[in-house]
């Protein structure tokens, strides 16, 4: 039925993949794990936030990470920028192992990997003026003397579409969208190779959100910076990402070229997630009533289920799913972690 669409999506997907793999790998995460311990001292609970996630980020590409709350996408982001130390796995930056979080590792990672935070109201120090906020990364790494920093701040403000004479103002004098631009300017101060955006546009109004998305795309074209774009809004990720990874309860469920994953999702969870997303077109009204309804509540990462973590809510689950964890394997131009991906792909209704 949709075989011709498959061929088209497949062809363009293949092209994008070869392009990406020819580029330099800037960040490579292998089997990253992070478990938090909570609860009382006598009866500690273990939250398995990220459980064996691997990804590579090439120079100049945008990798989107989507998933629902509690799937570990923010913990993953914090590990990639060195704010959180992984319990297991390895993280390579330009081939150098920075997993251990030594002072030298942190120094290297700070220069190359910067983060843009979700909330533009709390991520800027209210008592510092904009000039000092943007110069802070340069001051902290002692990478430039004060007069040079001032010039660089003016340049950065221009880059993100703000007037350089706003340098002496304070964060409260700016709107949400402008503050997010300041956050982006600060992240760019050290000329990083990678920007990690954790829900960077979620807190913004729709009309302002589009401005910031365009700005990120423009900066990427001009500076060649790689972007890891984490969001729960699937339509935003679809717009901005070259490749996309879908996370579920700390694991990567599906990872591949954006068009392939959105047009022909092979993981049952990706299918359910996409079918529950309201369409931005009135013609598709009623799409939600045809969605794939997931049974049960989203399970918590405390005591995650054995085997495939999606199995209690999956309509294709078999005994195999309840006992053995499906590895991420290649299938039709994407990687998918499901024992029954072929069946899911074949039975998927057209989206």
């Amino acid at each position, binding site marked *: 039925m949709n075989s011709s669409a498959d061929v088209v999506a497949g062809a363009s997907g293949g092209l994008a993949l070869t392009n990406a793999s020819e580029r330099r790998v800037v960040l490579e995460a292998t089997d990253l794990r992070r478990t938090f311990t909570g609860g009382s001292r006598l009866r500690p609970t273990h939250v398995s936030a990220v459980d064996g996630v691997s990804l590579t980020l090439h120079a100049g590409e945008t990798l989107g990470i989507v998933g629902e709350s509690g799937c570990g996408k923010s913990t993953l982001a914090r590990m990639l920028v060195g704010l959180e130390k992984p319990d297991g796995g390895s993280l390579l930056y330009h081939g150098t192992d920075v997993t251990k979080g030594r002072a030298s590792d942190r120094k290297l990672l700070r220069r190359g990997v910067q983060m843009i935070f979700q909330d533009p109201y709390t991520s800027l120090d209210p008592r510092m003026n904009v000039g000092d906020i943007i110069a802070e990364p340069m001051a902290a790494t002692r990478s430039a003397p004060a007069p040079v920093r001032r010039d660089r701040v003016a340049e950065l403000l221009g880059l993100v579409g703000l007037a350089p004479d706003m340098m002496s103002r304070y964060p409260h004098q700016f709107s949400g969208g402008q503050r997010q631009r300041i956050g982006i300017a600060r992240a760019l101060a050290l000329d990083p190779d990678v920007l990690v955006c954790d829900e960077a546009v979620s807190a913004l109004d729709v009309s302002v959100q*589009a401005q910031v998305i365009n700005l990120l795309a423009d900066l990427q074209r001009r500076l060649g910076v790689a972007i890891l774009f984490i969001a729960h809004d699937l339509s935003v990720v679809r*717009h901005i990402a070259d490749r996309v990874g879908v996370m579920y309860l700390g694991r990567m469920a599906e990872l591949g070229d954006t068009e392939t994953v959105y047009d022909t999702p092979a993981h049952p969870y990706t299918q359910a997630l996409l079918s529950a997303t309201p369409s931005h077109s009135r013609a*598709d009204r009623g799409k939600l009533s045809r969605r794939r309804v997931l049974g049960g509540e989203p399970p918590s990462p405390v005591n995650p289920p054995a085997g495939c973590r999606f199995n209690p809510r999956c309509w294709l689950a078999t005994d195999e799913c309840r006992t053995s964890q499906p590895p991420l394997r290649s299938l039709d131009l994407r990687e998918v972690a499901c024992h029954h991906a072929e069946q899911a792909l074949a039975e998927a209704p057209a989206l």
Partner: protein
Amino acid sequence: MTTAGTPALRVRDLNVTFTGGGREIRAVRNVDLDVARGEFVALLGESGSGKSVTARAVMGLTDEYTRVSAASLDVAGTDILALSEEERRLMRGERMSLVLQDALSALNPVMTIGNQIGELFKVHRGATRKQARAAAIELLGLVGIPAPNNRVDDYPHQFSGGMRQRILIAMAIALEPEMLIADEPTTALDVTVQAQILDLLGRLRDQLGMGVLLITHDLGVVMEVADRLAVMYAGRIVERGDADTVLDLPAHPYTQALLRSVPDAAARGHDLLTIPGSPPSPAQTPPGCSFNPRCHMAIDICRTERPPLVDVAAGRASACHRSEELLHELVS
């Protein structure tokens, strides 16, 4: 019950002014709204547009620094403005109710869910403790909480975000009100849970014949559920009408720009169309049309004269000097 002919909500010329801090801020101006029984009306707007203030004013949830005036404010045929504070209090929950966005802060953390829902039946219906508990269990089942018998004695923190939102909805519909106002009920939720909540609201609307006013900034949600639509900008309604026609052929440049600034699968790899600047603060709205500094169609008259909300076609109104052109430009 009143006759089926009366609308669930009828608002005329609603104005809300904040008087705190020694100056007056007009947050809502000249708002007219109608919600028929069994109808899903969406109120769409960005932060600061006055949509939540409108909801609170209708519910009568205002403090001493808020001044509300309206030509008429009828809920299911009853003139709210003529009621005393005590009569209003009795109407809330019974005939009109509000679902808030932040479910965790809207629930009492030291009271069990069963007691919080049961309280409604005790206060409004004089139910005994046993009856209230049974009613609470039934409602929890209705909104899809698994094993309501066991969960009724749990506290709010023991539920997930989606469940808490459903509990709030359960409380809002407990006494089968004629008018339900849902203020961003799904904003904090994941899409799979959001779909469940929208389903639930639609089902209850059909079963109970409630009028639903859904306040949201999410175009996707509007696309999915709205029968009619009102778009707010800087405290005023700028466009209103049947959702199908408004979303197909917006007659106001703001609605048009909003629809175009949303990422669309077909436009991948291209820049999104943006609206320059940001929404004005209610304290400083520009003269003339509030949208004129951000509007790509603004002409001289827009900067000096505010366009009134007038009918531009059957069943729809727009507040723009150039609505006619906009409609024709799009048609041709």
